[in-house]
């Protein structure tokens, strides 16, 4: 059944977008910053995995290293570029984020070359496809969906049931009051970046297994689309990011399925514009009021 396999594709792509969108949403929820560099953290994760596997490291260890590298990079970017601008106007922060993204992309281009390089996905995910009736579900799809859902469950547990998660929710609700309650805001922000980047790292590996290529600009389009997903779901909202991710993934797969694959990017951005015009806070976002 063509529809079922397209749905599986949509879920697969959607779960990757959801993981990345979660990173965007969490960072935005806590410091009101659109981290343009998020997509490029994904790119770095992909390269780290590819290079470590090529250097002979065991694939699963390489995956762990890649995720750790993403976490470290996210924390470093926060400390170096975003922390000094905590009290600056939002436009400076946004420009800095763009600068960091630009820096990562061009540095990658200079170090590793602009060409796409193959990614050893078969080393990481091994196994045969699953057959349900006469539909074949690839092992990559199964692993992607399962790992993503597991990650989201763990994240939800982290945010809802642990003390650190409570601190994250408190800081994103009201930074000043959270500080008064004795929460170390800077540490919480660093923790948020770490968690968001770790999710991006997982998403990066899954993305590279689905589309086995790494290139310096692979992060930018993925990041933008995941960002659209975060906005659709309601930026700052964790369940929203998940819903948004799946929605954008399904939309993209459906557009390709009807044969309009040239226009995929355009459709995704058109969705963004429609959402921003008619419901800027997204499906599950909280409305922002400005006090004078």
């Amino acid at each position: 059944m063509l529809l079922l396999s397209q749905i599986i594709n949509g879920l697969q792509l959607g779960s990757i977008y959801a993981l990345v969108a979660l990173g965007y949403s969490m960072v935005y929820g806590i410091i009101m910053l659109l981290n343009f560099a998020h997509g490029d953290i994904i790119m770095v994760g992909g390269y780290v995995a590819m290079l470590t596997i090529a250097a002979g490291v065991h694939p699963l260890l390489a995956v762990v290293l890649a995720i750790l590298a993403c976490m470290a990079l996210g924390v470093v970017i926060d400390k170096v570029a975003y922390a000094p601008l905590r009290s600056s106007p939002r436009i400076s922060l946004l420009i800095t984020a763009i600068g960091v993204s630009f820096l990562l992309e061009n540095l990658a281009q200079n170090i590793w070359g602009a060409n796409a390089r193959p990614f050893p996905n078969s080393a990481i995910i091994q196994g045969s496809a699953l057959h349900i009736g006469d539909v074949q579900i690839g092992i990559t799809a199964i692993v992607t969906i399962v790992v993503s859902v597991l990650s989201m469950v763990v994240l939800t547990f982290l945010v809802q049931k642990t003390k650190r998660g409570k601190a994250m929710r408190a800081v994103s609700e009201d930074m000043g009051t959270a500080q008064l309650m004795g929460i170390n805001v800077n540490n919480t922000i660093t923790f948020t970046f770490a968690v968001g980047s770790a999710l991006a790292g997982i998403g990066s590996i899954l993305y590279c297994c689905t589309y086995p290529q790494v290139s310096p600009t692979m992060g930018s389009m993925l990041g933008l689309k995941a960002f659209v997903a975060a906005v659709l779901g309601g930026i700052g909202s964790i369940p929203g990011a998940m819903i948004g991710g799946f929605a954008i993934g399904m939309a993209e797969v459906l557009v390709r399925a009807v044969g309009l694959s040239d226009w995929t990017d355009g459709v995704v951005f058109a969705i963004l514009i429609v959402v921003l015009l008619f419901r800027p806070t997204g499906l599950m976002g909280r409305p922002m009021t400005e006090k004078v």
Partner: protein
Amino acid sequence: MRQRIQIPMPVRYLINGALVVLLFLLGQFLIANNIISSYFQKILLQVGIYIIAAVSLNVATGYLGQLPLGHAGFMAVGGYTAGIFMKSIPLTGLPAFVLAIILAGIVAGIFGVIIGIPALRLKGDYLAIITLGFGEIIRVVLLNIDSVLGFKFTGGAAGLMGIPKYTSFPVVFICVAVTCLFIHTMMKSRHGRAILAIRENEIAAEACGIHTTYYKTMAFVASAFFAGVSGALFASYLGLLVPGDFGFMKSIEILVMVVLGGMGSMLGSVLAATVLTIVPFALQSISQTVADYRMVIYSVLLIIVMIFKPSGLLGTYDFSLTRIIEGLINRAGIHDGVARKGEKSK
């Protein structure tokens, strides 16, 4: 003490006009006598194009205080309009080009209205993303519209080829002068003050009776218009347009010029555009490795400037030759007054 001398308006016009004419004559002289090589002449044309692009982006970024990330989209619209126009009409030569430039600006301005009215309802980050989205949509449409229309309109990925090349120093210079004159006059006027007020505090501006949607759209459309003009000049300079040239990267390049130069300073945008256009060529002749790392250097510069001087290198400094002259005259005058006062007290 003697009163501070203020140069009257007609004399100000004369002084500024004389400056512009002098610069023009200087440029023409250098080119006519081949003091600057033809390679550098080409760079000079690019400098002019990017000056217009940067100054127009400065209107929406520096003066209005927003962050539109789709500027390259407006340049693309202007460039393609001019290119298709010049290729389609039987008229040739400079008059055709002038018409094409004006048409390019108008079409880009219309896009500015279409994009601006929905986009300007949003603030800050959301505006940045929606303009980015629009810029990408323009690029995708330019790439794919031929298959929808059924005939060769934009040339798709292969590009729009065979655009007549009319871009030359006089044309570019006049366009730069007109752009700067228009934007400067607009910002000194009541409209400009409204735009600046919106930048400072939109809610307070609205409370003072400023129609924010109208003025935000006006700034946005002015920005788009001149971006279209720069796109048209670019099209006629290259002779070939490819949608890939006008992606997110191009918007960022121009944004870097505006931010580094100083958001809100026209001189800053002009200087930054000049330096950042010339630097790649200069670097190439000095050291290829440094040239390859140019983008990395720009990014680091951008981050450093944002951390230490968020308003940009020149901040909101507004260059005014007449103010400098006034300052010089008054310093001479004040010394006179002080000396005389000292004598009297004896």
